[in-house]
């Protein structure tokens, strides 16, 4: 078998997907699954590896079913898939945390000792909190402002909605077009400063 995928960029494989090449889906899987899983596990270090893998698989399946959703002019496929997987994972963790919280309140009284936020709680919310803490530490090392640090944390969770970033940056009063430009400027600034500080920046690739 020709290892085409090893010498091709992910964007080139994506172009083959758009051309209905039947082996492109296989080549993309071989190229992207492991790197995405490793990158996502680094962002959510305490998260169950199976959940991480599922989020990566979901992101992969989405691009296979709807390859036109990715526009190579707007960034790298790696960044796109990583954001999608991180978003899926963060949402799954929030869902599990809510479910777990309800479950505990019904089944385990406080005296049993299993409370949210304590170290004996096998919590999904802790995974999220730890990922945020890690992002904030990296932001602090890069000298980002608190607002920029919050934006960075959201980027790490795969958040993509412009209005969320605009709210964090206090830009709600601006015209939507101006909000988009200002949010983009801020994200670009964050990435550059993280790079300069020598911090790993998956979204920068």
């Amino acid at each position, binding site marked *: *078998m*020709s290892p*085409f995928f090893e010498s091709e960029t992910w964007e080139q494989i994506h172009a083959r997907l758009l051309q*209905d*090449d*039947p*082996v*492109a*889906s*296989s080549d993309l*899987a*071989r190229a992207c*699954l*492991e790197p995405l*899983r490793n990158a996502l596990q680094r962002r959510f270090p305490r998260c169950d590896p199976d959940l991480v*893998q599922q989020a*990566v*698989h979901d992101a*992969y*399946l989405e691009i*296979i*079913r709807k390859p036109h959703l990715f526009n190579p002019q707007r960034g790298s496929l790696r960044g796109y898939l990583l954001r999608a997987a991180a978003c899926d994972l963060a949402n799954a963790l929030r869902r599990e945390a809510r479910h777990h919280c309800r479950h505990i309140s019904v089944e385990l009284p406080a005296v049993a000792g299993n409370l949210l936020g304590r170290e004996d709680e096998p919590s999904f919310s802790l995974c999220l909190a730890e990922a945020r803490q890690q992002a904030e530490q990296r932001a602090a090392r890069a000298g980002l402002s608190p607002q920029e640090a919050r934006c960075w944390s959201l980027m790490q969770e795969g958040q993509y909605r412009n209005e969320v970033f605009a709210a964090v940056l206090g830009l709600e009063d601006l015209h939507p077009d101006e909000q988009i430009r200002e949010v983009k400027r801020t994200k670009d600034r964050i990435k550059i400063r993280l790079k300069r500080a020598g911090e790993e920046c998956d979204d920068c690739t």
Partner: protein
Amino acid sequence: MTALEALARRVEDDSTFLACLLAHFARSERLDDAALAERLGCPPDQLAALRLCRSPRPEPNHFRADVARIAGHFGLDVNRLLEAIRRGQVLLALQSPLPRPAGLLAARDRPGEDRP
């Protein structure tokens, strides 16, 4: 199980992927992974990658080209792959529910007609 193998297993019910057709074929022949790989002439460690190919498009001109492309990419005998895919397609079609008729029609006597 590698990430690739786990994904190939996960998409066995998804007819977008060759995994689905190969799973039907393998079940009909009672083949495990090693036997399926042998039947297709595929190295066992490439089976997951093969399963993650897209299923051939159904239009006759595309179908042949897609099967040939997959066989060529993995160095497989095109006829063996074709047989497995065709069988998989037939079994998948048999398993799919038949379309239900839009409505049922029943005969009714006209007013005044004698019943037999």
